[in-house]
């Protein structure tokens, strides 16, 4: 069975639900503490840096965690082509470690800056819509996404604005299709205004990969939208209708939610036979 390490850095808070959804799609998931010897990260097929507040976001979100030996080890594994997913705070760590976009080896080429929206500052917790693109990460991270490529996902962050001060890096992210997930409005068009665009990120980016596509820094939390019961009752559109229809039925509520596709895609990539996966 394919094995996934979920890195537990002091201050993260999403490791258990991440393990739960990884197991739901047929993967063996193990929480590895960041102060274990780096060798504890050997023999895994993929890595997840979950959400939370590593080191309480001291200095800057992800800044301290990015320098951990465990993250260096994961960077080396990413260099071998193994999948690495950073969700929210995990995304901030990947960016601060230079793994995303990772155009120049070892260089930090962007930031996850404080949210920017007119007359609004600080932490934002709400559901958004993202469109999955066709960049180099699409095969790995979206292969299980059938039909509509616009997916509702929840966000919960204060520093989620992908930003680079280097115009050449911005151009390569855009032309290379590295902004794999982008915020869109209810019609599926690029989000032009708050709240569809929750933070003012470049290219309305919700998730950016490296050029190879195997490392994904994703600000929304797919693990918090991996079961139908997690979808808000008042959500508009097909997912909201499914959610409302499921009221009163435990089995219906336990079906896959909109964020499940990401983990299903990872499981497919890692060769988990479909029979081993719990398919809703």
């Amino acid at each position, binding site marked *: 069975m394919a094995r996934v390490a979920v890195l537990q850095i002091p201050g993260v808070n999403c490791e258990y639900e991440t393990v739960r959804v990884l197991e739901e799609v047929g993967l063996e998931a193990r929480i590895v503490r960041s102060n274990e010897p780096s060798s504890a990260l050997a023999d895994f097929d993929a890595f997840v840096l979950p959400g939370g507040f590593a*080191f309480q976001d001291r200095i*800057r979100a992800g*800044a301290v965690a990015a320098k951990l030996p465990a*993250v260096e080890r994961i960077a080396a594994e990413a260099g071998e082509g193994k999948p690495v997913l950073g969700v929210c705070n995990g995304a901030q760590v990947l960016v601060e470690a230079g793994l995303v976009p990772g155009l120049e080896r*070892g260089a*930090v080429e*962007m930031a996850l*800056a404080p949210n920017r929206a007119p*007359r609004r500052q600080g932490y934002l917790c709400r559901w958004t819509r993202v469109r999955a693109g066709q960049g180099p990460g699409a095969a790995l991270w979206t292969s299980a996404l059938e039909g509509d490529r616009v997916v509702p996902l929840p966000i919960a962050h204060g520093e989620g604005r992908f930003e680079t001060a*280097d115009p050449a890096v911005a151009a390569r992210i855009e032309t290379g299709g590295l902004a794999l997930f982008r915020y869109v409005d209810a019609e599926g068009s690029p989000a032009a205004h708050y709240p569809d665009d929750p933070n003012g990120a470049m290219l309305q980016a919700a998730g950016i990969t490296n050029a190879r596509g195997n490392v994904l820094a994703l600000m929304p939390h797919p693990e918090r939208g991996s079961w139908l019961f997690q979808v808000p009752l008042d959500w508009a559109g097909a997912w909201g209708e499914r959610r409302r229809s499921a009221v009163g039925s435990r089995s219906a509520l336990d079906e896959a939610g909109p964020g499940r596709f990401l983990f299903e895609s990872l499981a497919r990539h890692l060769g988990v036979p479909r029979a081993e996966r719990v398919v809703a």
Partner: protein
Amino acid sequence: MSAVLRTRLKIADLTAWTALDAARKLLPAGHALRRLQREEIFVFEPAEGRGADFEGPLGHAIESSNFFVNPNKEQYRFLGAADRGAALVPPEGAWGILARARGETRDDGLRERLLREHPMNGLGSIRRGRLWWLWVEGPEGRSADLEACYRAVGPVTGSRRGLLVNPHSETDFKIDGPVSWDAVEAFLRAPAAPRREAA
């Protein structure tokens, strides 16, 4: 000419502790980081054509409320335009990094809340920055190579290079001696240049 408020924690600053610990691992060989301190800096600019008439009410608001400073955990220095002196002077033995957001440094939301709670006339903009002060010793008692130390713990350029500033969301300058307040104000006001063009 602007008024200046500088605040810092008087209780243990855990962010500074963490920064100290992380920075020690990044310094050039032989260098020792003895101490690290973090300050917030607020610059209050008068409205167009106005003088310093807001300074009295502002000073009173700072002293008598916890809008900017909670006296249980923070200490502060508020200096009016006439009292602030010619230059920002590093603490004895320290050098520093002044950082600010790359985008707009004018905090209109803060100004709006301030004026709602503490009405005053003549206040234009409030701009913000962060000061990091570092006390570093060089090898064998020699003075530290400040340029190398700045590269090691200042702007992040690589996974093992830089710490205190992410140059894609912030901009900064090194303070290795007194810096005129005019230069500080200009730095806090000026638009940040794209990185490669600036290099």
